[in-house]
């Protein structure tokens, strides 16, 4: 086994947190480590332990299919409330978002504590302010969020491409304008438009 590959393996193995390729390289005196990481990931594929990349950071973790063997001894994760889970999904799929935007999707006010839980878990952070009246704070997810949920990047969020294609990540106002344009084109058939069963585009 290549000395560099061994060194990369030992470094990532010993690290207490996921490391970027840059951090690994810096730790190893500036060596080029990307090829070594790729080689290691391949070596470990199919093993009980795997080398994975999350948010551009690398770490070893146990293979998902062994979860049933390992779960019982591990401490229980804190259960997320339904509200917190929804808010987390909205932040992840729409980021960056303000609290008002989150509330407009959920149709209810979001308790201060709900966002706090996500901030405390380190999955969500404040990334700035939106330059609109009131300058609301805007939120986005963190690398720790991607790591926890096993996502290499936000592109891996389940179903995000379909949701985007269906326009379900667009604001209601935009979708409404699109739909009305479509209905306007179909207005020649008044029966359809009057029908109690609505249809959107």
């Amino acid at each position, binding site marked *: 086994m290549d000395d560099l590959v061994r060194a990369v393996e030992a470094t990532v193995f010993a690290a207490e947190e996921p490391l970027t390729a840059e951090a690994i390289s810096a730790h190893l005196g500036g060596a080029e480590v990307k090829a070594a990481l790729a080689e290691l990931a391949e070596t470990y594929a199919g093993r009980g332990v795997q080398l994975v990349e999350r948010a551009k950071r690398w770490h070893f973790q146990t293979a998902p299919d062994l979860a049933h063997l390992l*779960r019982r001894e591990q401490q229980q994760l804190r259960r997320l409330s339904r509200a917190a*889970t929804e808010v987390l999904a909205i932040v992840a799929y729409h980021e960056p978002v303000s609290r008002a935007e989150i509330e407009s999707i*959920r*149709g209810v006010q979001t308790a201060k504590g709900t966002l706090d839980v996500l901030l405390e878990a380190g999955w969500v952070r404040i990334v700035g302010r939106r330059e609109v009246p009131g300058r609301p704070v805007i939120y986005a997810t963190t690398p720790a969020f991607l790591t926890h*949920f096993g996502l290499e990047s936000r592109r891996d969020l389940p179903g995000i491409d379909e949701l985007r294609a*269906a326009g379900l990540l667009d604001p*209601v106002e935009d979708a409404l304008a699109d739909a009305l344009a479509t209905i306007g084109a179909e207005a020649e058939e008044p029966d359809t438009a009057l029908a109690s069963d609505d249809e959107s585009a």
Partner: protein
Amino acid sequence: MNELLDSPALTLPDDDWTGPAGAAGEDAALYLELDGWEGPLDLLLDLARRQKVDLRRISILGLVDQYLTYIDRAEALRLELAADYLVMAAWLAYLKSALLLPRDEQVDPSPEELALRLQLRLQRLAAMRDAAARLLARDRLGRDVFVRGAPEGLRIDKQHIWQCDWFALVQAYGQVKARTQPVVHMVRDRLVMTLDSALARVAAMLGVSLDWMEIRDFLPPHADPRLKRSALASSFVAALELARLGKAELAQDEPFGPLRLRGLKP
């Protein structure tokens, strides 16, 4: 796109949350669980899901009826309803009547637009709820997959290489000594003209002439410049003393100009 929006995708796994829908039924117990919904939109979405059709094909009129029935029965049971449920009920009642009106009597925005807006909001909430469920079902770190239990950890020990040179060292010592040495005043032994001798000399010379003389002319013609400064100072004080005694007068035409002196007849 279809598989996402079809109703199976909207069914949430029971282990992540169980909405009040789990207790679906007509009995009063259902109404007691009204607290379980997070607001009217949540209740509407739950009612919509019970239609078991694609949200895009849902009957808004049917949904409005269900909601209004629900609220009516809750009121009949004298349950306290949060204000936003009642606001939504009033708005839906208005929407229903507008949807049933002949088209030419309608106002802007059209009831179809309002209904569409409601439908779009329900779709978006449903999509996010579905996404949340799928996120939670992933292989999560600390639940399904685990990092190394006892990593050695990487440590970077910073070691300081201290820099100091000979000059800085010696200079520092010099400054310590200079700072802490007691301040000593040295009085040098040097040639001076005392006030007494100046007085005697000036008084004697004033007796010789009654003309104005510059004070420098009273000084002894010595070459030593340090004695000259002492003599000038002493002679000046002597002149002041003689003027006080009325034996001389002093004149100076301008500041820093020549100082002139002449004797007065007693």
